[in-house]
């Protein structure tokens, strides 16, 4: 009898134990799901507010004209859009070749000590605060020339860009099977021909993805532009005068105490987010199924921590 009682006692204890653990499990699950919701809400709210407030400001005039007098609520962000396109374009002109060549170095000549340290410092450099890069561009270009310069802004942005391009290029080149290179070499081609004509041709999709994501990243940079191109209310005149850019314009507008400026700020934010999320969504949906692209995104996640 006593053993039966004991058995019942154990059974009750067991039940209790399992129940307790299941309840803890459920609580944890609820906490985790609320974590996810807590992260999605800000994203939803940001997109919603930018679209809701921004769409009211958008008009042909807003997109093409120079800003009106302060607080009047007239005019637009034409120079800012133009400036963003110019500075990002120039930055890509500097950053992409360096990044691609550096990626080729890491992937094709990357089996040595130098390459390992380059890879490491490349990853560390990617995480440098962008404002420090802006100061660097200020010191070596603006201070030397004695005036604000579009080149300084482009240089600062290219410094943000090239490590990203280098890493993504490296990853996509590494995805190309070694047999491609061997086939090229067997045909008697020189290594640089093999690399430029065969390997890059096979890897170009991943490389383009990396470049586009880098462009999206620098398009939204504000801090390094403050001390390099300064901001302006006029359209681009020459390389040696201050120029406007969308993030700078948003910052200026947000500091003004007028409702109308606030509205214009939202409008500019909508244009900016349209460009940047457009690039991101485009790249991800158009080429997402490709193996190389998945690898790129994964590298970006590991190395750039999802920031792009």
């Amino acid at each position, binding site marked *: 009898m006593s053993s039966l009682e004991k058995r019942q006692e154990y059974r009750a204890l067991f039940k209790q134990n399992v129940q307790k*653990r299941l309840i803890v*499990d459920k609580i944890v*699950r609820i*906490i*985790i*799901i609320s*974590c*996810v919701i*807590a*992260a999605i809400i800000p*994203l939803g*709210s*940001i997109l919603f*507010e*930018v679209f809701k407030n921004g769409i009211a400001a958008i008009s042909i005039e807003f997109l093409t004209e120079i800003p009106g007098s302060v607080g009047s609520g007239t005019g637009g962000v034409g120079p800012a859009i133009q400036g963003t396109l110019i500075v990002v374009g120039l930055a890509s002109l500097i950053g992409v070749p*360096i*990044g*691609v*060549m*550096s990626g*080729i170095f890491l992937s094709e*000549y990357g089996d040595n000590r130098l*390459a390992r340290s*380059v890879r490491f*410092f*490349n990853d560390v*450099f990617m*995480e440098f*605060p*962008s*404002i*420090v*890069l802006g*100061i*660097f561009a200020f*010191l*070596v270009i603006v201070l030397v020339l004695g005036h604000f310069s579009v080149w300084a802004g482009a240089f600062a942005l290219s410094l943000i860009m090239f490590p990203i391009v*280098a890493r993504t290029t490296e990853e996509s080149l590494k995805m190309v099977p070694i047999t491609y290179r061997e086939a090229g070499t067997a045909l008697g081609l020189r*290594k*640089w021909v093999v690399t430029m004509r065969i390997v890059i041709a096979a890897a170009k999709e991943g490389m383009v993805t990396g470049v586009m994501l880098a462009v999206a990243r620098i*398009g939204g*940079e*504000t*801090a390094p532009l403050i001390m390099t191109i300064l901001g302006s209310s006029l359209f681009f005149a020459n390389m040696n005068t201050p120029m406007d850019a969308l*993030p700078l314009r*948003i*910052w200026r507008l*947000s500091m003004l105490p007028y409702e109308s400026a606030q509205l214009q700020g*939202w409008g500019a*934010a909508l244009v*900016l987010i349209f460009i*940047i*999320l457009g690039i*991101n969504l485009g790249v991800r949906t158009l080429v997402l199924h490709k193996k190389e692209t998945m690898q790129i995104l994964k590298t970006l*996640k*590991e190395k750039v*921590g*999802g*920031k*792009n």
Partner: protein
Amino acid sequence: MEKVFSKKNDRKFDPDKIFKMGAVVAGCFVLVVIVLLVFQLITQSYPIWEENGLSFIIGTDWNAADGRESFGALPYIVGTLVTSALAMAIGVPLSIGIAMFISDAPKKIGAPLGFLVELLAAVPSIIYGLWGLYVFREFFMNSVEKPLHNTFGDSIWLFSGTPFGLDIFTASIILAIMIIPTVSSVAREVMKAVPQQQKEAAYMLGATKWEMFKLAIFPYSKTGLIGASILGLGRAVGETMAVTMLIGNATGLNAIPGSLFDPSQTMSSIIANEFVEASPAGLHLPALIGVALVLLGIAMVINVIAHLLVTRMLKVKEGAINT
């Protein structure tokens, strides 16, 4: 045949060598830039170190007016550390929760969700700032800060300041939101790197899902998770625009926060606010560059540690899968 071969070998102009040289030069560009950058920051901030010495780091005065110039960076260092620490305290648990959910959810839910969280990373800092300033600030001030202040304001010093919405609390929350994508996506990769056998073994012992995380995943991925968090810390330390717009931009002694509801200033925000007005002739510009040097030093140390931890973890993964 002889002739062809010798012709090829004797050629002085070897495109392969030039190509390789180009690649090596481009690869070394990053090293050159880092060295030049640090060198420039040191030489250009030299006047302030010469004038103040180490008291630049521990001083609290900040006055750029002519004749009464005095610069101490301590308040901004404190501001950066406090906001980043708060952002970590809020953001890291959230991110690990998200990573747990995504790493464990079926692919149909996990993939789009991961994608959404990564979109958070694509939103530019300035737009976080704008949203924080016009949307989040008001909501947060009225429905979180004021109730907290009214209930605990007298008893707990943390909540004693006047809630105004432009303070370290708001800035830290925005920072926390901004580091979520970084931390959660790295944490996810790290958790995925845990070998399937470990998880199965835990389940086989009768573990619930939570117990499986506790038994199998956390011990295995501890290093990587710490690395992910530190990576987030590195990002928070360097973040500029959103913080500049929300932290209230106090200077000097006022920038040392007395409570969660006090305005402050971080190293990056003082640079963003004052850099353009600073004259290179006086000490103001060298002081700001000195701040940048300190910021870079802190960010670099944090990132090197994080990278070492994360790569070590992900290397373990490869080994574990192969064996």
